[in-house]
């Protein structure tokens, strides 16, 4: 017999070859202890959605409802309007869609602002910068503005921003702000990142995303300080020490609304006088 069997230790390396053949292979058989795969408590929690899915869903509902209440989208129904005294101005009706249920109102989105002619065009060397009110949320669209300068005419007033009262922009329209442009003035429009601007007032340290090059002694447009926090840009307001632009009669401004209310009241008063049903004097006495 030319067989040879030798006991060895498990794991010992041996050379397998043929008699007379120099080629050989070094092989070995090892053994190791292996622990079964076991998931940690964190893995079990993470991979078991039935544990945390309901909590996450509840949290989402709370956030949504909280936002809706905070923004006024859902609010308690107002008390019924008191009977108007004769001659009293009629309040402007709220034309927004309202869904009322059990004393709670679900208020629809405000109508989109419509452009109205400016009462007075700005001067050629003055740039009008819309000034959001304190505490208002101003939304800027990241859509880059055409770099080709377009002369601004009085017939095309820009819509600089859209006021949105909602924290997370629920239901807010997506405005397309126009970089402040002046006829005959080169405007460098810079694409801006998507950001939420919260005007809280404070010194200016950074220029606005859209800048205008004003020739001559024209004053640069007031710019707002903006700070970025994880993708959210907080506008701290206009620069201190610079002249604030005068509020213009923008669509939806307080001045415009006041004028409209006054006009309505005057018309109502005149109609009552013509009908003879109106008060004999301003005191309201018959």
């Amino acid at each position, binding site marked *: 017999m*030319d*067989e*040879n*069997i*030798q*006991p*060895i*230790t*498990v*794991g*010992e390396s*041996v*050379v*397998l*070859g*043929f*008699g*007379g*053949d120099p*080629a050989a*292979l*070094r*092989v*070995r*058989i*090892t*053994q*190791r*202890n*292996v*622990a*079964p*795969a*076991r*998931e940690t408590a964190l*893995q079990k929690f993470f*991979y078991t959605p039935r544990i945390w899915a309901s909590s996450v869903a509840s949290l989402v509902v709370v956030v949504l409802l909280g936002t809706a209440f905070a923004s006024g989208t859902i609010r308690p129904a107002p008390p019924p309007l008191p009977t108007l005294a004769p001659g009293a101005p009629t309040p402007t009706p709220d034309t927004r869609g309202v869904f009322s249920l059990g004393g709670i109102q679900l208020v629809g989105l405000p109508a989109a602002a419509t452009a109205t002619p400016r009462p007075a065009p700005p001067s050629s060397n003055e740039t009008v910068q819309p000034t959001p009110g304190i505490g208002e949320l101003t939304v800027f669209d990241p859509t880059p503005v055409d770099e080709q300068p377009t002369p601004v005419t009085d017939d095309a007033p820009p819509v600089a921003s859209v006021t949105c009262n909602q924290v997370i922009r629920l239901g807010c329209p997506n405005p397309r702000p126009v970089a402040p442009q002046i006829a005959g003035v080169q405007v460098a429009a810079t694409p801006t990142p998507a950001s939420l601007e919260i005007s809280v007032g404070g010194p200016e340290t950074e220029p606005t995303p859209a800048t205008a090059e004003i020739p001559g002694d024209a004053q640069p447009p007031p710019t707002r300080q903006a700070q970025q926090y994880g993708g959210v840009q907080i506008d701290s307001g206009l620069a201190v020490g610079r002249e604030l632009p005068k509020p213009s009669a923008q669509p939806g401004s307080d001045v415009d609304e006041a004028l409209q209310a006054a006009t309505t009241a005057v018309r109502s008063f005149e109609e009552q006088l013509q009908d003879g049903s109106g008060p004999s004097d301003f005191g309201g006495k018959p």
Partner: protein
Amino acid sequence: MSTVTRPRSEAPPPPAAMSRLLGIETPYGKPVTWAEVAMITDIGTTHAWNDDRCLVVTFKDLGETTSSPWREFMLCLVADGATSSSFGPHVDIVETSSGGRHAGWRASQVAQGAFVVGFMNSQQPDPLDKLRDGLRAADRTIQDANEGSLQTTLTALFLSADGTARAASIGDSVLAVLSPEHASKGSKKPKKLGYEDSTAVGSGQTRSTNINQDQLIETWWPNKEGGSAESRIQRGTYLVLMSDGISDNMKIPAIEQLLRRHPLDRVTVGLPKRTRENREQDQKKSGASTRQNELGLDNMSAIVVRFDGARGASRPATVPRLEDASLVCAMGTYGGPEADSGGQFGLVCLAGQENGATAAPEFLRQFLESEHRLDVRARIEQAWRGARPSRNQARFSALYADDHGLSFTFANDPARGAR
């Protein structure tokens, strides 16, 4: 027939809650570079013996004369002996064991050895046809052995280094294929084989002309259901072969989730534990007993393969090319009639093939079939004596080791060979 109780482990037992795995290291990988393999077997709770067997055999043509997919491939086999199998009255059981005349373990043992030889001897060019020939050979061998009423399931997977994959089975041992594309959208019908629970190897059904052979032998190949003409599996594909002890109690998506999160070997050795846990939960839901010995768990066995794809040259630059030789590595789990049947063994064979084929398959068959009849040294000697004439090969050397701490080298030339 006499049975020999295997020697108790000389090595210290593995720590509690850990399993001992054997690994084969060759210059060509562990034992290959293009796939990772692990296997496990567990006796379960209902039997005092183990009818299951796992076997993974890798073949590599060291002369590099054959072409793909035959240059380097592996066979994975899971067999689950039928509980109803029993030795005939003419078979003398000298040393009784807890299995008594129960012969499921013998059926799976014989079937695996016969399959390997039938596959390698098949003249069919297609791997799928070779798999069918292997199953028929196993069926015939068990019947011709005339040891009694022996039946077993047998699921076989062919996987080549180039990704060519084919599988065939008789019985309800399962093949699940978890391709990478399923990772994000969940496995879409991952169970490919193992739907036939009324068929068995050893029943002689492969000889019957009244049975549709295409229905008797389930087959699978990549994209069999359509959708793509690609007949190879993707890198990162998991192939899981398991006996019904696991597949009946564990959902395949749960196995897939484990495989995506943990190392393959740890998942594999954890499958029986997971199966027990699942069974306990099911028992608890149904109000049944949750005691370990009353869980009603069958033998549990599994082979898990991950195809990683060939990376670079199959032969390292430092390894010389061996003319007319093959490297055959076998890793398997033991079955048997004892309550502690199980454990793993490894076998590395360097076999000459100057006459066109090697004696390794026949050596492996003889070695497997002599389990529980002879000790390891005698098994190796007998296996070589039985295999050498089959191929008229003189060049052969081998290394054997098991998790009981036994290891031997064998060479047919005492002046040279294993050292």
